[in-house]
């Protein structure tokens, strides 16, 4: 027989007039191998169909189900009830816009980030759809892949005190996303241009090295080394004035 789990879940639907934030308590029998995706689905099917939460892939690839599980940002699909006490508190991720209950809008945040920082491949070459893809050496490809593994779940942002203190700080996810293009040989921007975007208190020099990001990234991205890498690269460019002016570093 499984444990009897108690869930205290944040309920609030800002789009429903008259809705006020409250905590609702649910009870559920634990089953073997139960993760929070299973638990929440059962709660919604058996106890309260109005409970809002997000899921798509159920396998830690889509980044939709980030939430605060007993205070820490986690993916619900990757968190098993057996690793938690019988009392489980669920809150929506902070930082992002609340859609209702446990559901938040991470998409707008990441889209704004991309627009603000130019987080896409910048090239002057026209795309030729029938041309063969250019080759890239394996080491570079792997390094890009390491950054590209980010699923934009937002856990690192919720876990970063600096993000909470300074809304415009783009956090580890934002910086990591720019590193991905900086590493890409097809991107034609020089380091100096990246400095313009990232070399400030809202970019890498706002990071205080608290490592909440790395310790809470469900994909185990090597964020410490990633952040340190870009910090050094940009500092080398930033201290030599002339290069900053020319654009290509």
């Amino acid at each position, binding site marked *: 027989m499984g444990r009897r789990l108690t869930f205290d879940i944040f309920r609030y639907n800002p789009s429903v007039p008259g809705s006020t934030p409250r905590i609702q308590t649910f009870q559920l029998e634990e089953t073997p191998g139960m993760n929070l995706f299973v638990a929440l689905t059962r709660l919604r099917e058996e106890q309260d169909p109005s409970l809002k939460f997000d899921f798509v892939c159920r396998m830690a690839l889509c980044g939709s189900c980030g939430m605060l599980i007993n205070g*820490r940002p986690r993916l619900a699909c990757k968190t098993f009830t057996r690793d938690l006490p019988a009392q489980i508190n669920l809150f929506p991720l902070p930082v992002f816009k609340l859609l209702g209950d446990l559901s938040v809008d991470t998409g707008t945040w990441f889209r704004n980030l991309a627009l603000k920082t130019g987080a896409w491949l910048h090239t002057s070459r026209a795309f030729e759809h029938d041309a063969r893809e250019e080759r890239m050496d394996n080491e570079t490809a792997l390094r890009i892949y390491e950054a590209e593994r980010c699923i934009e779940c937002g856990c690192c942002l919720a876990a970063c005190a600096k993000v*909470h203190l300074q809304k415009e700080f783009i956090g580890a996810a934002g910086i990591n996303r720019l590193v991905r293009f900086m590493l890409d040989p097809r991107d034609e921007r020089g380091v100096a241009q990246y400095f313009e975007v990232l070399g400030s208190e809202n970019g890498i020099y706002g990071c*205080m090295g608290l490592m909440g990001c790395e*310790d809470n990234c469900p994909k185990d991205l090597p964020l410490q080394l990633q952040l340190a890498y870009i910090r050094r690269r*940009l*500092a080398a460019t930033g201290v030599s004035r002339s290069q900053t002016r020319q654009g290509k570093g």
Partner: protein
Amino acid sequence: MPDKPEALGPNPRVDLYLELAGLVSGLLLVTFLWVHAFLNATVILGAPVFDGMARFLERYYLSPVGIGLGLLVGLIHVLSVARRIPTGYREQRSLWRVARKLRHADTYAWILQVITGLIILVLASTHIWVVLADWPLQAAKSAFRVQTNYLSFYIILLLVAEYHAGAGIYRQFVKWGWFRRRSVALAVGTAVALILTVNLGGLWAFHQLGVAR
């Protein structure tokens, strides 16, 4: 991409410079603190050795230069890191709330760094004031202080300063370095333990000086 996505004012590198000022001043202060530890510990070899060291530093003007530079670097340090100290109720509240929810060691370590920094500001000023008021430096005078009112004061200042210095270089290596956190913590922890031993040895020797007399 827009050329300048955000208007940073006339010098877009100022955030980097502030960061570098914090880094360099912090590292220089750690150097000062650790050199200070070994100079202090010469008293373990006896009062005459300590007094000889003090006279040597005096003869080549190393004392006033060292203290003066230390104060200058300290001033630069405080000015460059002050921007990070969460002032105001809202900042304090969100910082403590995140830390408490996350129960996250490195975040708490940073909060403690800010608190110890502020304590050092008060205690170190007092320490420098007291020593300068009774210049020149002599083992007998220091021993008198350690044995009368100042022992607990020095122990607190020592622990607070070593924590602050250790956590500071740890974070700087995490922020700039090539090594994973575990190795950095191990290396810094070892260094701090060593320096702490040297310092406590010095204090103990000052404490014994009077007893022998």
